[in-house]
């Protein structure tokens, strides 16, 4: 008996003994898969197996907020092969998905991975099971921002935070304002100073914000936020 306690759920599995599986029976994976809410059952190599489809409360929560069912991932790692930022992450995308279904909420929300996903959509395009990893990452970032967990990559969290404030304040992105805000947040005052100066000189950064759509933007932000109870 294997007992897995992850804080949300207690799962019990019967461990398979080697003699339970007869090699010449082929792959023991011939069951039917139903969507979350139902259970996965199957029969192969003389072994009855059953895995609850909704593995963790955290996985359920993610599915509720993002519509992404992590349980259909069969860990083929195609997402990792194509991910341009996997080299910089603490957990690869496929590991993060698995952590979600194990209910390891603190690990997931505290990971660098959720902030280092570039949202390039390569994994989503190539996933044979159509797991929308980018949508999952979006939801996980939103959860992390809301729950006040300390971000493993604070400058990126600060960027999301500052950008949103920028839209609320100006209606359109005001790059200089965003850069100033970000510098206050990260305390990296000297970063890209030279590049910024050149951009200004070339007239590629506006000195003043455009307020053309301020009222309209504020109205949408407040009406959309109200829907989400905030």
């Amino acid at each position, binding site marked *: 008996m294997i007992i897995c306690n992850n804080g949300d759920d207690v799962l019990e599995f019967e461990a398979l003994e080697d003699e339970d599986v007869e090699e010449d029976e082929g792959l023991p994976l011939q069951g039917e898969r139903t969507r979350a809410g139902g259970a996965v059952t199957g029969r192969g190599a003389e072994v009855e197996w059953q895995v609850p489809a909704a593995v963790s409360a955290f996985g359920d929560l993610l599915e509720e*907020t*993002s519509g992404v069912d992590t349980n259909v991932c069969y860990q083929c790692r195609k997402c990792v092969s194509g991910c*341009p*930022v996997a080299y*910089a992450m603490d957990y690869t995308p496929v590991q993060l998905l698995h952590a979600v279904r194990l209910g390891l909420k603190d690990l997931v929300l505290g990971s660098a991975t959720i902030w*280092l996903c*570039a*949202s*390039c*959509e*390569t994994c*989503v*395009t190539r996933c044979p099971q159509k797991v929308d990893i980018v949508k999952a990452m*979006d*939801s996980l*970032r*939103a959860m992390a*921002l809301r729950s006040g967990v300390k971000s493993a*990559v604070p*400058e*990126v969290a*600060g*960027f*999301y*935070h500052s*950008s*949103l404030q920028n*839209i609320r304040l100006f*209606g*359109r*992105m005001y*790059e200089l304002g*965003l*850069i100033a805000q*970000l510098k206050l947040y*990260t305390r990296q005052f000297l*970063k*890209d100073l030279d*590049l910024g100066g*050149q*951009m200004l000189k*070339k*007239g*590629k*950064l*506006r000195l003043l914000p*455009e307020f*053309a*759509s301020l009222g*309209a*933007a504020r109205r*949408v*932000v407040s*009406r*959309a*936020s109200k*829907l*989400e109870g905030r």
Partner: protein
Amino acid sequence: MRYAYYPGCSLHSTGKEYDASLRAVCLRLGIELAEVKGWVCCGSAAAHAASRRLAVALPLKNLAQVERQGLKEMLVPCAACFSRFKFAWHEIESQPELRREMEDVVEHQFGDGLRILHPLEVMARDEQLAQLASLKSPSLAGLRVVCYYGCLLTRPPEVTHFDDAEYPQSMDRLLSALGASVLDWGYRTDCCGASFSLTRTDIVLKLSHDILEGARQVGAEAIATACPLCQLNLDSRQREIEAEYGTRYNLPIYYFTQLMGLALGVPSRELMLEKHFVDARRALEKVGMP
């Protein structure tokens, strides 16, 4: 032909050349652009990470204005904005309940047949290519260029419906029609790391280096782009990349609309070539262009 036009924040600042060159090209080709009145930021940079509903509501606010202006097709040159618009429309088309909610938020009932298009989709149409090929204007003959599409134009295909997700060809066909020697290469849809421009520059330098290196390996002397974030990364960070990796690329990074403009005889001043960080005139002098 008349289109609604959503420039987005970048084309009013860091990507001014893209705005100017697109307008110049459309003027020459008889394509009329009507800027979306009072457009708001599409939320590209951040809304999706904070609130799923806001990420849908911001683009829809602009689409509502498009319909109010009596237009049905909107051109979005920024690949990041294009992606957000396509996502928002995909979401409400596939979820009737969300559609009702969002129509309430943006205070507008959407009709049918609204289309979000990237300028490449219009410029690389067969009839447009035929028109361009028949023009007696300076051609790009001799310019060895690779076409860089970036992430968000083609992916995911179920949402963007743009060309081919892994091997897009529209920009290649367009620049070939204008006489350029378009080279095949392996980085056309790779990511430049744009979302980390202001934060994790180390990631941007690595990813953009790979792209520049890929272009050099096939013998390109220029890269054509279709996204203001890609252009900015590859152009303005190129010196830093060269210093970091101890090499020299000196590869000008053009918007495809700038190259179109040159082929159509638009003066280079109007295309804002002087705003580039890497000298953009050198490659053109080589092919006998002003």
